[in-house]
């Protein structure tokens, strides 16, 4: 007869696998709902949206792997794979849009006009506004990144802040270009999948918690030593 599944093992799954993934998906959903992909050109990846396994502490990957094996027939396991596959598509599509923007006459002309406007208004803006003339390439790349991430406002201490806060709204209109469609579609699929996945994991957690009498979060003073 197979040994009874012990609550310690279930507690490990809840605390070091399920909870961190749910927390990360929650954060991911709030980013995706606002259109912020947290995509960075320096890595060509979403900085804060990661694969499911990366949401788990690397020291707990053995627990994650056992959890995936034990639940391989469950509906949410394909959701893990879909998540990572949609994320990969988002990263690829974001990179393609980034390259398109930097080579698009529409964007380049818009950027040059905005820079001209900014440089002429800079002295009278009433906020610290650095000249971007000598760092145009960096500013252009950063602007593209902010378009991709649907950035609304930048904090004052960012060098691009005054420029973006003055002109960003116009740049964001480029998100309606057909070249953005694959990115929007991949983002929407990721968003839909992540929302379902989070719900499914919350459901699993509830059942494990009930069936094995394990609290959904560690409680100081309560141990899981088997009798």
């Amino acid at each position, binding site marked *: 007869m197979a040994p009874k599944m012990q609550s310690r093992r279930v507690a490990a799954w809840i605390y070091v696998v399920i909870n*961190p993934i749910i927390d990360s998906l*929650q*954060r991911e959903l*709030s980013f995706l709902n606002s259109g912020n992909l947290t995509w*960075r050109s*320096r890595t060509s990846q979403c*900085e*804060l949206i*990661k694969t499911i396994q*990366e*949401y*788990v*502490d*690397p*020291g707990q990957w053995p627990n994650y792997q056992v959890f995936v094996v034990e639940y391989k027939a469950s509906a949410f396991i394909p959701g893990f794979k879909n998540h990572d596959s949609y994320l990969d598509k988002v990263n690829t599509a974001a990179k393609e849009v980034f390259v398109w923007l930097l080579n698009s006459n529409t964007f380049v002309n818009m950027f040059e006009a905005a820079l001209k406007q900014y440089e002429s208004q800079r002295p009278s803006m009433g*906020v*610290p506004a*650095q000249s971007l003339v000598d*760092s145009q390439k*960096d500013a252009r790349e*950063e602007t593209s990144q902010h378009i991709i991430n649907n950035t609304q406002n*930048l*904090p*004052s*201490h*960012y*060098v*691009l*802040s005054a420029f973006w806060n003055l002109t960003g709204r116009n740049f964001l209109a480029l998100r309606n270009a057909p070249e953005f469609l694959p990115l929007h579609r991949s983002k929407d699929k990721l968003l839909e999948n992540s929302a379902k996945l989070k719900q499914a994991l919350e459901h699993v957690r509830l059942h494990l918690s009930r069936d094995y009498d394990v609290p959904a979060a560690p409680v100081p003073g309560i141990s899981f030593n088997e009798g």
Partner: protein
Amino acid sequence: MSPDPAFSGSQVLIFDTGPLWELILYTAVHKLRFLSLTPELRHLQNDLSYQRLSKFVASFPRKTTTPHVVAEINSRIVRTERKGHSEIWGLVYTEFSSMRMDEEAMKLLEMPQKLVANIGAVDVSVLKLGLSSGQPKSVVLSLDRHLIAECRQAGVNVKDLWEVISETDS
């Protein structure tokens, strides 16, 4: 925020670890929802404090620090939950690149041994940078009272983070 006449015309802001860590933590907690880091955030307790610090930093065309400060940031990251390290480092990179942060190396053997023994190599690296970057064009930003005292004694412009975030808007 009213401009501080003592620092008018200052060009270079030299970051000590404390204010830099606070900027990073504020973004992590309030903008990226890393709520588990909330207890680490000691000084920027509200958006007004953050805005004041952000505006103060923005008033300097150049920002710099030392690799010692980066190493101290590393040790603070190591203290946090391991699962978030990659995200926090991502934030550090974003803050550095968005501010166009510079870094200047200070060799240990070029630092006075007694002073290092007294206030530590990180503080001395910041102080030496303040001394070498052409006063009165540079300002050290810190919340470490020992470093602040040493800077004042050495004639280096220094600003306490508390002064920055408690100044009233004019």
